[in-house]
């Protein structure tokens, strides 16, 4: 067992994955001797050499396009995009190629690859460094979209992502890269993809979230608990394919639901979850489903950034509105 941060757990999982499978290669900008600008690939080049840890030229479409070719040849590329705000030039390669090569060739060729990137706001970074457009990836058929929210889940889910035979977009909540440490056993054990993790059981209301927002949501659950409210907190973790059953079962129990994400509210992943509840869990609802989410604005520069991000107080207030609804 090692005490690691979330970013430390990413590095640990990468090393483990590369150790166990010689076809795994890591590529991206500054992933080599620099160890990645967040140090998520620290130590890899020393251990696995420059043929498996590739500092690429600066071109994101190229990173993803290379990975498609590598993966079709049986390698398992793990790409790092330095920030989610810089993945957009690669969208064409991801949506038109990586996500559909298996389908296009009836399974003859496939794209086992991981597209890692730090995402989300809250670190007082410059423009374009605070994106959270996970819903965009979730909408594209053929992808998996996985978001860890703790060192342990970062380790286990990233291992699962690397071993998965299909492309996985792996979004790392950089605001909590170093927010806290956890004991993680580097035993190569993956966590299951495609399922939610119930972080806290509760009876009165279901709080659904993922990524860095688990922190605020758990804090809101604490605040609610202080007022005698028992909140269930679900970390969706794999947002696509969505494990709606776990969420629906929870809402069936509590009758009330608040969904929390920092991405812009319109057509965010919260909409999909609310829609599934409206479709399949309508009769279990005792109150409207609320979304506490980012506004439909560009993430402001850092002086106002904290006002953009859903706060514990906003989450708790929404939960109280939903709880008071009768």
């Amino acid at each position, binding site marked *: 067992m090692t005490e690691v941060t979330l970013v430390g757990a990413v590095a640990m999982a990468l090393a483990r994955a590369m150790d166990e499978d010689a076809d795994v*290669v890591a590529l991206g900008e500054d992933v080599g001797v620099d160890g990645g600008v967040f140090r998520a690939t620290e130590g890899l080049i020393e251990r696995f050499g420059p*043929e498996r840890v590739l500092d*690429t*030229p600066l*071109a994101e*479409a*190229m990173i*993803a*396009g*290379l*990975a*498609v*070719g*590598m*993966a*079709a*040849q*049986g*390698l398992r*590329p793990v790409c790092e995009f330095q920030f989610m705000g810089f993945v957009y*030039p690669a969208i*064409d*390669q991801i949506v*038109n*190629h990586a996500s559909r*090569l*298996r*389908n*296009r*060739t*009836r*399974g*003859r*060729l*496939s794209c086992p690859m991981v597209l890692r990137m730090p995402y989300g706001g809250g670190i007082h970074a410059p423009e374009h460094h605070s994106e959270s457009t996970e819903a965009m990836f979730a909408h594209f*058929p*053929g992808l*998996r979209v996985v978001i860890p929210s703790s060192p342990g889940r970062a380790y286990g889910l990233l291992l699962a992502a690397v071993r998965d*035979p*299909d492309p996985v977009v792996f979004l790392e909540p950089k605001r909590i890269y170093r927010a806290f440490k956890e004991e993680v056993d580097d035993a190569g054990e993956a966590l299951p993809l*495609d399922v939610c993790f119930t972080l806290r059981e509760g009876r009165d209301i279901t709080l659904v979230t993922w990524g860095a927002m688990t922190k605020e949501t758990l804090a809101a659950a604490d605040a609610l608990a202080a007022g005698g409210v028992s909140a269930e907190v679900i970390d969706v973790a794999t947002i696509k*394919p*969505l*494990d*709606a*059953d776990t969420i629906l079962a929870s809402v069936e129990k509590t009758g009330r639901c608040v969904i929390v994400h920092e991405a812009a509210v319109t057509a965010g992943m919260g909409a999909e979850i609310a829609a599934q509840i409206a479709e399949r869990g309508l009769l279990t609802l005792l109150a409207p489903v609320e979304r506490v989410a980012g506004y439909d604005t560009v993430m402001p520069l850092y002086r106002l950034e904290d006002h953009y991000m859903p706060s514990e107080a906003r989450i708790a207030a929404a939960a109280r509105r939903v709880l008071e609804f009768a």
Partner: protein
Amino acid sequence: MTTVASFEIGYNQFLDPDGKAVQPLPEFARNPQDLVPLYRGIVFTRRFDAKAIALQRTGRMGTYPSSLGQEAVGVGIGAAMRPEDVLVPSYRETAAMLWRGVTPEEILLYWGGDERGADYAGPREDFPISVPVGSHALHAAGVAYAFKFRKEKRAAVAVFGDGATSTGDVYEALNVAGAWRLPAVFVAINNQWAISVRREAQTASETLAQKAIAAGIPGEQVDGNDVVAVRHALDQALETAREGGGPALIEAITYRMTDHTTADDASRYRPPEEVSAQWPNDPVTRLRGYLVDNDAWSKGHEEALIAEIDARIDAAVETYEATPPQPVEAMFDYMYAELPAPLARQREAMRADAAHGRGGDHD
């Protein structure tokens, strides 16, 4: 001002439009008989192409992009590649694909709206046709990286058009291939048109071959209607690539003799005289001329070949037309290695809808 770097772009041709050798032919072409397979490949493609268009015109197949007039490029590429090399083509590489062992049946099935047409029985590692122009050049770089990584003496060949050379993807592919000395060969088929846009409107660069200079890799032009020149350039570039000498860009100059695809009407944007002026460059007559002049081909050979090719193509059409469509749920079955639960639910719902006649009845 001091000069710190200088570059030259060469052009190569062996057979002139009349089928006369303008310089000694390379080794592989010393014996005229050895060029007969190339001729067969060119003629096969031309006749297949005509049939495909006829199928489309009669409503028996979907949109199809003809390679009329540029068959020699694909055949030259195919002939230079080894089976273990990997082809990463765009949509107009019928000639190279056929040479590599993709069957006429598969090609018809693909353009006939059936994904199984990209599940090649032959060249299992070749990429399917790439429709997003230029994007696949990067895949060739990735494939080439895998070869280099595994220390295999293989090369990847990306083929794209003059229009594609304007895309950032092609540039990025050339650039990384250069930076990493990847065993990749890039072929830009300059057929002078990208749908309605002339080659001159794509770029101010005098040649497309010189795009290589930006990536620090060799670039050269060849007469794309001279299959000997194409194959020779590819032979050399592939050999260099497989031996660790790095990538190259080859511009094959040809002309798109017909519409962009069956959905296009080229008469809207280019005069018929421009097209007819190109017929004297035809790769078929050129190579046939050389073979006949060198007693390697006769009218009898030609008739036998046509008959043989047409029989093969007719058989392919028959198989194609007799192939029942996939079950509707096939659209789910290759999205992931294992069907995730939500998709399984959707698949079930679709089957139920289909059973109740609520499937596709659009007009």
